């Protein structure tokens, strides 16, 4: 690259700096207050960690003085799964292992009874299982800003509003909805559990969703003057598991990216459960989504949701 380009960057930065000086400037007082709060939190965390270490050493020392060998209190996990500055969802967050029965101690929900808000935690996947099933996803950590249900009123759906359900799953706001989101450096996973009034209502919504996805192989959404995303999704057909499911795979395009999308919708009693796995890519380096990915994701959901105490 040339010296000229470096000068261009300098001039561009200077131009932005000049425009900045015509405004209100940086809020020094607010920045200082935020920094002080952050410092207090950091120092409190350091003290808490130091206190735990001192306690562990003291107990170990007391055991030695007493002539016994005593195992000190459990410290941070040493199995390689310790958080590294992010919140890491593990199997202990209430989501049962898909390979076994429920392990959260909650009483089983009677067959046929509608699922309620207190059951939703047991319907959430373990992100570690998703990482294991979908290649190239990496380690997933909890993302605290998971989206809610529905589209912003200003959002326009392409090719027509008839495809809106491709985003929303159900036509109107459900009785209860919860969304979990997990992210990695190379993608993210979103799971949304929507509770309807009863099983019949949920089944009707599932039928309508299936019809919409088949009628809308290409769709998109955007906020006028701002931006959005476009999707090309192949409906791979219904899954072969005990619970009705719809598998789909395709791409999402926008902001110069072409990301792969794997999506499964499952009907269980009065609930619709959607899981979408997105892996980031570039127009010249797309990451293909495969039918095998969709089948693997469906398999995870079937194992989780078709437990005797749930589905």
């Amino acid at each position, binding site marked *: *690259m*040339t*010296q000229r*380009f*470096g*000068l*261009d*960057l*300098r*001039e*561009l*930065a*200077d*131009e*932005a*700096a*000049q*425009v*900045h*000086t015509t405004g209100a*400037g*940086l*809020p*020094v007082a*607010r*920045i*200082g207050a*935020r*920094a002080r709060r*952050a*410092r207090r939190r*950091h120092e409190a965390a350091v003290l808490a960690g130091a206190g735990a270490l001192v306690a562990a050493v003291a107990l170990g020392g007391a055991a030695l003085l007493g002539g016994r060998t005593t195992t000190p209190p459990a410290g941070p996990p040493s199995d390689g799964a310790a958080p590294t500055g992010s919140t890491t969802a593990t199997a202990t967050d209430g989501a049962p292992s898909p390979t076994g029965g429920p392990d959260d101690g909650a009483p089983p929900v009677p067959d046929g009874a509608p699922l309620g808000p207190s059951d939703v935690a047991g319907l959430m996947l373990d992100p570690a299982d998703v990482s294991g099933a979908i290649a190239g996803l990496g380690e997933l950590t909890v*993302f605290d*800003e998971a*989206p809610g249900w529905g*589209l*912003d009123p200003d*959002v326009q759906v392409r090719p027509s509003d008839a495809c809106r359900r491709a*985003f929303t799953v159900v036509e109107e706001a459900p009785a209860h909805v919860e969304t979990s989101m997990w*992210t990695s*450096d190379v993608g*993210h996973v*979103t799971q949304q559990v929507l509770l309807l009034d009863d099983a019949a209502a949920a089944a009707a919504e599932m039928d309508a969703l299936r019809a919409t996805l088949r009628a809308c192989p290409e769709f998109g*959404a*955007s*906020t006028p*003057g*701002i*931006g*959005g*995303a476009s999707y090309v999704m192949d409906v791979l057909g219904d899954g072969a598991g005990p619970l009705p499911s719809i598998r789909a795979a395709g791409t999402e395009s*926008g*902001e*110069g*990216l072409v*990301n792969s999308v794997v999506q499964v919708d499952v009907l269980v009693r009065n609930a619709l459960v959607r899981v*979408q796995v*997105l892996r*980031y890519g*570039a127009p010249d380096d797309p990451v293909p989504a495969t039918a095998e990915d969709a089948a693997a994701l469906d398999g995870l959901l079937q194992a989780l949701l078709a437990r005797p105490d749930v589905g």
Partner: protein
Amino acid sequence: MDERLAVLVAERGPALVGYAYLLCGRLAEAEDLVQEGLVRTFARRRSGLEVAALEAYVRQAILTAYLDAYRKRRRWLAVAHLARPVDGPSVAAPDAVAVRRTDVRDALATLPARERACVVLRYLEDLSTRDVADRLGLSEGAVKRYLSNARARLGPLLDEDGRPADHVDVALEGGPR
């Protein structure tokens, strides 16, 4: 802390905003990045550091915050609530130099976050590829790959003499910082 923060903002605030602007391409976001960089820097005790040293910490924090924010933005792409501001500096740019700056700005906007960060560190801050790798926590080979990809996208902006771009990838002594 407050006095050093105030001095840093007064003396280097606009330059920091300019630096952040090169990374993100939007002035409002650049100002937010600088705020975040300042908070992250002053959230740790930095006793005895002069403004220049503090500025280095803030620049690194801005870079980290930019890459963190970019990852979050990409996470939102699947959500139709994504709002993508399209503002840029509102300075009028009628002359040829300003037109070239517009080309540079538009070209930067085509770069993915890591390529953009590599370009800014390499050609604005005049860092070696090894130093860029250290700043971003990448291997030197990865940085070279990102820069190569960026050159392919930036094309004619980079070579005013008609030579292949890789012939001019040399750190110039006394060149622009």
